[in-house]
């Protein structure tokens, strides 16, 4: 049974080391952590920060997504994921996902799938703030 630990969507600062420690397990020979960081550019423009907004149920939805993910990806030791909300500067951690498993292949594949799943299905939005002073909602129709 895969352990699901530390799942949250809130304004607390994310420390990737802490999340990797959460998925450590005596049965796990591999821990893979993805750290999503605010970068300083997008499509040729200089970015100074991102504002993340989450649906009020995003924490619950993330927990449900991960429960389903663990059912679809049997054999993992532990899984965690957390997303920040609020205003972040360049270099700050916006998103962490970590997976442990007995062997490295599973952990690499599962972590990549988990990141894609969260980006695709977690109701979180971001507004990019540019050095020029304007801003834009990312993926906005």
């Amino acid at each position, binding site marked *: 049974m895969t352990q699901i630990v530390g799942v949250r969507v809130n304004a607390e600062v994310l420390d990737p080391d802490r999340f990797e420690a959460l998925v450590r397990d005596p049965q796990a020979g591999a821990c893979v952590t993805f750290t999503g960081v605010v970068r300083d550019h997008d499509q040729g423009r200089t970015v100074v920060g991102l504002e993340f907004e989450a649906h009020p149920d995003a924490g619950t939805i993330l927990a449900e997504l991960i429960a389903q993910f663990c059912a679809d990806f049997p054999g993992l030791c532990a899984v965690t994921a957390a997303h920040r909300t609020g205003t972040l500067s360049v270099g700050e951690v916006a998103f962490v996902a970590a997976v442990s498993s007995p062997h490295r292949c599973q952990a690499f594949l599962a972590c990549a799938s988990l990141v894609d799943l969260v980006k695709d299905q977690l109701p979180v939005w971001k*507004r990019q703030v540019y050095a020029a002073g304007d801003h834009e*909602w990312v993926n906005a129709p």
Partner: protein
Amino acid sequence: MTATDLVQVRYFAVARARVGVAEEWLPGALGLAGIVAAVTERTPEASATLAGCSFLVNGLRTFPTDEPLVAGAVVDVLPPFAGG
């Protein structure tokens, strides 16, 4: 239509920015399609945004139809997600 027919419509991210309010109460009798049409007519600048949104009714993904919504329902207007 009475006041008890109303449903709560909540707009997120760019949808809130374009429509200009975070939430409002609208007649459930319009159905989800009628609500979207009414908001689009009132704020034409939100038209493209609303066309690209998905919708939750009481937390469940719902496609716009004329079927009346239950009074007190919560309708969430969600732009495409952009987390991570």
